[in-house]
């Protein structure tokens, strides 16, 4: 078995205690994924596993065996991802430390919205999802920004969502 990381097969580490986050950063030198709290509270380590956003600090690398991982390096492999461009355009960052996690989370979040998945604040759980600013804030609440760039982050995500709307 192998972990497919940004399209390349990687053998899982022998030591079970190695998290997916540590595998990415310390062994594969994919340092775009950041260590924030290392306890599931900040979202800086967000990556995509089989297309879904997860926290790489709370996942053992062994758990990712046989699954496909996309990091910020994979998301922006063919030039800037539209979300990366939008974060630049709308000042969705200051220091940039939370940004890779924000962008990975936002890319999966937009897919969730397109699939009609409600959030805690969606009034009609079975109705269509309208992506308001409050919906973006609720859906992105797992990604903290200590610089307080959240207004720009919401602007950037709203702009990309508007471009993608049919």
């Amino acid at each position: 078995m192998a972990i497919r990381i940004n399209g390349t097969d990687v053998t899982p580490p022998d030591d079970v205690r190695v998290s997916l986050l540590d595998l990415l950063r310390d062994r594969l030198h994919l340092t775009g994924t950041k260590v924030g709290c290392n306890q599931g509270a900040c979202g800086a380590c967000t990556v995509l596993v089989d297309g879904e956003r997860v926290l790489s600090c709370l996942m053992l690398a062994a758990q990712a065996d046989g699954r496909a991982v996309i990091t910020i390096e994979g998301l922006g492999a063919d030039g800037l991802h539209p979300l990366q461009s939008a974060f630049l355009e709308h000042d969705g960052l200051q220091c940039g430390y939370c940004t890779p996690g924000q962008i990975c989370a936002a890319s999966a979040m937009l897919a969730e919205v397109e699939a009609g998945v409600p959030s805690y604040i969606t009034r009609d759980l079975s109705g269509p999802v309208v992506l308001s600013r409050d919906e973006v804030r609720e859906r992105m609440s797992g990604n903290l920004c200590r610089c307080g760039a959240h207004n720009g982050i919401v602007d950037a995500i709203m702009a990309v969502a508007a471009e993608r709307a049919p």
Partner: protein
Amino acid sequence: MTPVSYLRADGAVDAIRLSALHGHRLLGGGTNLVDLMRKGVERPAVLVDVSGLSALIEEAADGSLVIGAAARNAAVAAHPLVRARYPMLARAILGGASAQIRNMATVGGNLLQRTRCLYFADAAGSRCNKREPGSGCDARGGFTRYHAILGASPACIATHPSDMAVALAALDARLHLANAAGVRTVALLDFHQLPGDRPDIETILAPGEMIVAIELPPSDVAARSTYRKVRDRASYAFALVSVAAGLALDGDRIVDVRIALGGVAAKPWRALRAEAALRGGPATAEAFARAAAAEFADAEPLPGNAFKVPLAMRTLAAVLTELSGERA
């Protein structure tokens, strides 16, 4: 973390076989267990990955919904039948943790997560009867904002952190348990234990036993139901108090009602006294306030969490008001 080995179970039979291993812990999504291993609270010798248990969400012949233990929280909340028939459950799950954690967490693991009491998690610096039986409790007399006001004991004042389990308690969910000795079904309400003098014993699970499925019976009150969570920030925080409630009305009369509370006890707290006070009576603000008062008549708050009693009573009344047609 102490050294540990990892085995991935290939289905329920294999999981049951591996759960006979000494010093094992079942690994679902890992969102709680991996963190507690890193903090030194959990020190398993073997991790048995049970993400290969059933993750199916299926309707049974009697109209029940059966959810495999390895179903992800996010998948349950997104399921069309859950959203349409059990809105309080979808909203409770969506109110818990973050989207990333809901994608990882399994429903079986959610029910077996440990308390988030800060003193329990502080293995290096705090005494905790749940972590080390008989060692004492540093939470009592400490920072108790997130601690229990119902059903606590001198040994432990921790709360159960799950939002999902609160809705399951209100919905009369049943758990399918299995080990090498066989399969049995228990009510969720009987699954978690109050702390008493053994807060380290949290559930009725027998050795080697695991949750394989959650069964939701058809419900008259679930269609008109919701979940409200009050917390220190707008999102991604544990509950100070939460309310799952469902109401069946005939005009202004309450035909049936289910209420459960989160953030107040070591287990999801079914509000049987409030239900009894309401059933058959009028759906009025006065009745809701009286029912809430009845539920908390024996509350035993601490100086740091006394605010939770009026907060929970008002939240309960507000949710019932909302469900009865008037937005509170």
